């Protein structure tokens, strides 16, 4: 294994012991990028020069010298932030997202900005206006999305870890597709300041890492109250690494029967259930529960998310920054042409859908009703957590599929069935690899916890990771 295949904590140890220098580490990653990026296409912008410049100073902190990647919908001062959209192709923000400030304070080295489905709308990273990203486990397959660039970069050794954003599964689904750990924190624990919004009430930034320990390390850095985000919660700074212990004894695990009765890839279902069995063998108590409203999650999610998105994306009007149509004769035309020319198909579809959802004619029937179902779902999930510590499901109903295999939007929305309830309920969830399909594609298991239950989540995931021992498996990319 090369340095670029190691975890954050492994790199940290080598750096602290002075076995290697930050320059050695950075070189290893840049060499890997040089070798595989042409095939994987994980990045929109690679900031190699800035990274070299950065390690020339004496970096301090828990991430000192660790090369990381950022999803390109996180605002970076002086570095273009595109949301993989023609609309923002040349937009250079004048400010850093709060998470970027936090990474900088801890000495992290940013390697670049990773590809995503335009404005985080999609599950394949195929809706990027620039290029498709491919899955390092099989280059004909999608890496998932919308944080597909971040997941592919980490899986391919093009970054030690990455930040993604998760509105309906956009961290967990690509992490699962790429054989990684992905964590969607409790809503309000990580500042959204500087996250270019898709759906504000659901969006949350989180880590995509090679193992659970790295997820805990990154979580320690990026969580915390931010006065710039009014939805950020007041809380004491937790040390999530304190939960890195192998102990499942007495842990109460709920399996929602609605999910296990569904018809989907049997390899996925079997792999997840096999992992659950192993947890049970280690002392966990596993029981079936019912969460009746969970079957409406996808519908509720698309109503609320697109409603919010239609408003959030209205600011891309060509007036102050980003793309502006050259063919407009007046202001109304400037708005119309700018948006027609610079938004992609899926973004337009969701804006139109959301605009209708919020219209006077549809608001009560759709938006208000969806909010009510969301409230009901939250209550049902809270009720489960009165008796159980965790809820366990597959992360995705399928493994990574071939690029271009799913063209019907409704089909693709169904892929979010297991992930969206987490965002609707504002709870945390983690995905870790639990096996591989016969086609050697990773399978992810999702563990959900109650609000602010990241600690238990990490403990269970860490324990399961140790039981399964899949940690050292890496995709075999043809290297130039």
């Amino acid at each position, binding site marked *: 294994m090369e340095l670029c295949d190691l975890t954050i904590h492994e790199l940290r140890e080598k750096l602290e012991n002075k076995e290697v220098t930050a320059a050695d580490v950075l070189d290893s990653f840049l060499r890997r990028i040089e070798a595989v990026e042409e095939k994987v296409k994980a990045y929109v912008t690679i900031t190699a020069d800035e990274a070299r410049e950065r390690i020339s100073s004496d970096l301090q902190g828990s991430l000192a010298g660790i090369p990381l990647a950022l999803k390109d919908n996180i605002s970076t001062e002086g570095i273009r932030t595109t949301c993989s959209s023609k609309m923002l192709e040349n937009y250079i923000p004048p*400010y850093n997202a709060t998470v970027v400030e936090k990474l900088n304070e801890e000495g992290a080295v940013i390697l670049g900005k990773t590809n995503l489905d335009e404005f985080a709308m999609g599950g394949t990273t195929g809706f990027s206006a620039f290029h498709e990203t491919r899955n390092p486990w099989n280059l004909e397959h999608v890496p998932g999305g919308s944080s597909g660039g971040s997941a592919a970069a980490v899986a391919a050794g093009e970054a030690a870890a990455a930040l993604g954003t998760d509105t309906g599964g956009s961290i967990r689904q690509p992490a699962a597709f790429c054989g990684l750990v992905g964590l969607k924190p409790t809503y309000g624990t990580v500042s959204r300041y500087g996250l270019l*919004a898709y759906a504000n009430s659901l969006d949350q930034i989180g880590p995509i890492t090679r193992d659970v320990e790295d997820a805990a390390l990154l979580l320690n850095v990026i969580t915390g109250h931010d006065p*710039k*985000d*009014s*939805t950020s919660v007041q809380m004491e700074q937790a040390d999530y690494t304190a939960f890195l212990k192998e102990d499942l004894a007495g842990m109460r695990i709920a399996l929602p029967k609605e999910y296990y009765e569904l018809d989907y890839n049997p390899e996925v279902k079997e792999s997840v259930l096999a992992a659950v069995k192993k947890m049970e063998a280690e002392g966990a108590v596993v029981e079936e529960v019912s969460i009746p409203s969970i079957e409406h999650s996808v519908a509720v999610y698309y109503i609320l998310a697109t409603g919010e998105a239609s408003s959030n994306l*209205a*600011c891309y009007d060509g007036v*102050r920054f980003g793309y502006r149509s050259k063919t407009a004769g007046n202001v109304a035309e400037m708005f119309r042409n700018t948006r027609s020319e610079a938004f992609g198909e899926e973004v337009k579809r969701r804006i139109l859908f959301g605009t209708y959802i*919020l219209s006077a004619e549809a608001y009560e029937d759709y938006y208000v009703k969806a909010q009510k179902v969301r409230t009901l779902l939250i209550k049902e999930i809270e009720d489960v957590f009165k008796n159980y510590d965790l809820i366990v499901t597959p992360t995705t109903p399928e493994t990574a599929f071939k690029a271009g295999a799913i063209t019907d939007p409704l089909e693709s929305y169904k892929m979010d069935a297991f992930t969206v309830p987490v965002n609707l309920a504002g709870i945390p969830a983690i995905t870790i690899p639990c096996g591989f399909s016969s086609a050697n594609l990773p399978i992810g298991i999702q563990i959900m916890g109650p609000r602010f239950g990241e600690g238990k989540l990490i403990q269970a995931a860490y324990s399961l990771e140790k039981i399964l021992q899949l940690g050292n498996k890496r995709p075999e990319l043809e290297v130039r």
Partner: protein
Amino acid sequence: MSRKYETIIGLEVHVQLATESKIFCNCSTDFGAEPNKHTCPVCLGLPGTLPVLNKKVVDYAIMAGLALNCNINSYSKFDRKNYFYPDLPKAYQISQSDYPICENGYIEIDTEEGTKKIGITRIHMEEDAGKLVHEGSIDQATASLVDYNRTGIPLIEIVSAPDIRTPSEARAYLTQLKQILQYIGVSDCNMEEGSLRCDANVSIRPVGQKEFGTKTELKNMNSFRAVERALEYEVERQRKILEEGGEIIQETRTWDESLNKTISMRTKEEAADYRYFPDPNLPPLNVDRDWVERIKSSLPELPREKRERFVREYALPEYDAGVLTDSRELADYFEACVKEYSDAKAVSNWIMGDFLRLLKEENLEIAEVKMTPAHLSGMLKLMDEGVISSKIAKTVFEEMFKTGKAPEQIVEEKGLKQISDAGQLEEIVLKVIEANPSVVEDIKSGKDKAIGFLVGQVMKETRGKANPGMVNQIIREKIESL
């Protein structure tokens, strides 16, 4: 307006709050800075930025609500009003839709039929938009520039109930509203700088009819006078249409000051669907009792209360009390004087007379006046002590107002001290009697009023400094002894 129809008017008033910083960021609210100086990523609506509510704005909105007799809602929330316009950076305005901070208040206005209550339906908080600057006229401009300094300045919108029945009541409502808001210091209510803007809804209906007629909304009125005139025009326009058997169209009309008429802007069918929904970036606002109590205890006395108290406490005529309480500053000035000189009516006369005249002539704000309340009461004491006459007092007053010098100093420097020395006055009186024998004869024969002429002559001799009471007395004595 003929007796056949009744007018129904409701007013929507937008008021810029006088907080130091904007409603959702820390930028300054100063007026008149160079374009786009007071902006940041938040108020420019740069992607990824988030609003953080300025608590001072809530304080001010609560103050306004309490001063306007509203209920302060313990739960209110912020909503997005979505529309595209270049001066609106996020393409939505953060406002309050179905749960405003204040509801169900009223204002009392004075009408010819006495005091009338005008209901206030609601007060809500929102952010202001920027300002477009067109190159040339708006129709011909090839480009427009946007100044975002105003973006995010806090506003409250105060919506009246449809209780206003005449254009002059509308004006009285606005005048009273402005006075109250200025009193409590939440806004300077300067219409020229756009810190107070008013839209009006107006409809008419046959007297006796219960249902409202179709209303029109009037915009672009830049003074209270313009509001009154636009309403007068619009009521008349609607009456003519109805009398000719026509129908009123629900529409928005703009007041054209130069043409003196309202012009159709857009009909109801063309009205935008603002797609209001709760802003997910701002949690609901909870205002507890303590918060309201804290604001209540900081609220100053309001104009009407003060007026009533002035009548009661200082035994002033209603008229005087009204003039003196017109602004909080004037009322404070008056009270500071009365503290040191108890004849309130005398103080009132000086303030309502020379003080306000000079204020207007010199175009000053009360805060800029050099003469202190102590100076005015000091001057009144000098009059009582006979040091200066009332005539001289006018000179002293003007000098105090212009220079800010103490009355004693002015009297000393200008030699204005009243002559109360009996010997000195006798000498002058004798001279005057000698010079006016015929007048003396008149007085002797019973024309008592003629004494005034002789007094005037003595005053002339002394350039107004003679003690008029003493002069009068001495003249009588001398004539009797002749």
